């Protein structure tokens, strides 16, 4: 693979027991870009992220990070090498304080050394977290929790940040803030792999996008091209629009 790809997924199959969730999935995330992974509920988007972060195992295929195979690594090792995963539903530690959540975000030894700087950065980006640092994470509002989840993931100083449905459950105004945030983190040099059901917004900010359907990649291309594609419009964007 070329030197400029941060993350490469090559022909990955994933099984849940007897049920196959992913079929021969390949994608590439170039350094410094935003890649969106869109598709309907149950298409396998979260499964792919979990496979990259080592929670699920690929039964076939390979995952490369900066050219090296990482398919065999366990989750704690994956975050250590620089891939951070904000899972679906955020999965904060609700009974721990905001500050404790952030401390754990910087758990890998290399991140621990720069904890003070990372914390300052996180608080600069999300001032509300600073004022609530001693509050329990479970007491934050939905939007604040999402911010904390992203801030926590950034504490490990990742090269690649994987976000699973960051806009889920947020009000329309917060959804926009969230996507602005994703774009601004990307400008600071963080490579992004973004899973979204808010297809329109995701494709708008994505450099490149993949459409996942029933566990297979059925379409890929530039974000704006996919957004203009009549089929994508009909299947994902339009439907969503009609509902509103």
């Amino acid at each position, binding site marked *: 693979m070329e030197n400029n790809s941060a993350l490469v997924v090559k022909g990955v199959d994933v099984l849940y027991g007897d049920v196959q969730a992913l079929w021969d999935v390949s994608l590439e995330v170039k350094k410094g870009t935003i890649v969106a992974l869109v598709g309907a509920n149950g298409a396998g988007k979260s499964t792919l992220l979990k496979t990259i972060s080592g929670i699920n195992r690929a039964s076939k295929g390979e995952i490369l990070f900066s050219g090296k195979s990482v398919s065999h690594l366990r989750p*704690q090792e994956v975050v250590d090498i620089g891939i951070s995963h904000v899972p679906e539903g955020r999965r904060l530690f609700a009974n721990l304080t905001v500050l404790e959540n952030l401390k754990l975000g910087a*758990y890998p030894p290399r991140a621990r050394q720069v904890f003070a700087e990372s914390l300052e950065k996180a608080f600069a980006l999300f001032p509300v977290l600073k004022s609530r640092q001693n509050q329990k994470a479970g007491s*934050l509002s939905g939007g604040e929790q999402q911010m904390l989840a992203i801030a926590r993931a950034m504490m490990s100083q990742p090269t690649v940040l994987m976000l699973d449905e960051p806009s889920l459950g947020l009000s329309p105004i917060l959804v926009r803030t969230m996507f602005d945030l994703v774009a601004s983190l990307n400008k600071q040099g963080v490579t992004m792999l973004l899973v979204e059901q808010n297809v329109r917004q995701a494709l708008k900010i994505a450099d490149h996008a993949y459409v996942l359907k029933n566990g297979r990649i059925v379409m890929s291309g530039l974000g704006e091209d996919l957004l203009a594609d009549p089929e994508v419009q009909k299947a994902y964007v339009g439907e969503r629009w009609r509902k509103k």
Partner: protein
Amino acid sequence: MLQMLSFSLVIQLLINGVLFGAIYGIAAIGLSLIFGTMRIIFLAHGTLIILFAYMCYWLFTLLGIDPYLSLIIVIVIAALLGVAIYRGLFTEAAAAEDKNISLLIAIGIMFFLENLMTVWWTGNPRSITTTYTSAVVRLGGIGIPFTRFTGFIMAFLAAGVVVVFLKKTLIGTAVRAASEDIISATLMGINPHRVNGVAFALGIGLAGIAGVDMATIYPFDPFFGFVFVLKSMISLAIGGIGSVTGALLGGIILGLIESLSSFFVPGGWTDAICYAVFLIVLMWRPEGLLVRSVKKA
């Protein structure tokens, strides 16, 4: 006169209940810690407490080491044994989704130790008699058995140390995080085997303290451990799993229930009442009586 007598008697019963309940409490803290990261009730916990009571007994009878001095040795051995048990027996099972495997291992450990202890020390009760075994501390007309009093103090100190450890150290925070969500914890870079090992070291270390307390207060036999773990479970049901202070208070409440019912209700009913409390609490407030639950994020 009679009223005065019964008043001081009730006070005495309350004190006895609180003092012995604290030992249930530290056993319950251990159970709660292991449950937190492993998601199983470690049924061998009580049997290990008895093993440590025997250890204390041997150190005393064979080497003449004072029980309170042997506490240091027993705690260290207990914590190491905790790690060894995890590394040796649970590493594979802990990773499996099916928690029944881990539970079966715990049951296996319990039966194995019960039988091992019966071979070594026979099924006859053993006890430690020192110069201070029957000593009594007098506080304003109320007599407090010295060994129970020290047992209580140790339980409180141990609980305090555990609370500080869990709150103030990074690995302690990681243990609390893993107790909430082990998958999310691994995504932070936390090694599940590390936190499980720490939970075992702390939990079994506390069992060491409970064992020494036990040995100095009560006669014990190899099969008392199972009853002990049941009592710890009741304490947890009362106090709520996942909170150190809750577990300690749960143990103390159970101690009070036991102490009072053993006096006011005809013999044999005490245990039945304890288990009834267990069921009623689980029915009525399965998250524990004392827990103020925080919504999941």
